[in-house]
């Protein structure tokens, strides 16, 4: 996985651990953090799928999650 994305994933996982039951779910937080990072059009499809699964998006939902992410301009 791209090192910059890996860092974002660790940040999301850390945030979720520190804020269990928080308002923002890890899947959405990952989308927002990648958008904020300035690298939204940088990471490959494989990296994004691996990142989503790493924060808990299920295999059944990951392509739908990716579609939602892609639709963010």
């Amino acid at each position, binding site marked *: 996985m791209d090192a910059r994305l890996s860092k974002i994933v660790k940040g999301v996982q850390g945030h979720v651990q520190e804020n269990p039951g928080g308002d923002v*779910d890890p899947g959405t937080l990952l989308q927002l953090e990648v958008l904020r990072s300035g690298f939204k059009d*940088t*990471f490959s*499809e494989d990296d994004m799928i691996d990142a*989503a699964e790493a924060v*808990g998006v299920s295999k059944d*939902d990951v*392509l739908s999650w*990716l579609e*939602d992410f892609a639709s963010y301009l």
Partner: protein
Amino acid sequence: MRPEVYEENPALANWDRLSINRAVFDGDVNAEVQYRRVAVGKVGISGGPYLKITGDGPGSTFTYTTATGKQRPYRNSTLFTWTSKMSCASFSLPAGPVKQGGTCPASTVAAIEKEGTYTEHHPPISTQPAGQVFICDVCYAGKGRYLMYKSMSIGQVVKLAWVNETLRDGTFVRKMSEAIGSLLDDEIEEYLARKLVSNKFFRIHDSGDFFSPEYYKAWVAVCRNLPKVSFWAPTRMWVYEKWRALFSNYPPPDNLALRPSALFTSAPPPSIEGLAEGSTSIEGRMPAPVWNCPAYEGEEEHSCAAARCRVCWKSQSKPVNYMTH
């Protein structure tokens, strides 16, 4: 392996490359819509109507190869996207010229100029000021992540195959009405509200267009079946005289805001009889009565819900400017 980022001209839609991605799909789409309970879990919204896909792989699974060479299974395609940006469900088809597998016949200058009568409603494309762009050339659905992720293209091709099959067998209106209607449930509404997403609004075509009169009429019937839902769709089909006649003779119902979109940036929003006021894209704000989309003005989450705005669906008399971003 280095990811493909299409650096040759990332600002432009690349329909040729998209057509290659679209051609990857050679599986089969089951015309019956499947359902999973909509839920808001630890990772956002999941579930809802979906399409089953089969292929030639082990266990009849359809698999595709990503740009970085990894084989991935693609078993189900959700019928709708939970677009966080628009804070509602939406339906998406392949965008761009028909020749490249898209559903937007009016997405090229040549196709528009051939018909010609659009100039009664819009400045001629030949008068496009220097520095402005033909909007379809920079369509978001033809570049960026839409281009990088093959699964995006496959999902849209799957939906188009389903549309064509259900139009052919006469079940599109029923199945689409049932699918959107399945979201009209108090419990689902409560779930979605937690994510600032509404089941009372629906976006037709966050990508794609009404590619045939039959398809347009089918959506009109779907909207009539669901009077409690507000629908919004942009369209370029207004450039064709026969389509303007269709919109006039077969107008969208009150709960469908069908907005004609401008041809180039800085052009005024088109106004077409029978349709909602049009939309355009210009850098910066336009004076009233044009409504400037507020979704991109905030620093944080860029969405209709965050901006507390539903003008595109509900205020059909207001032209809209989606400020260039």
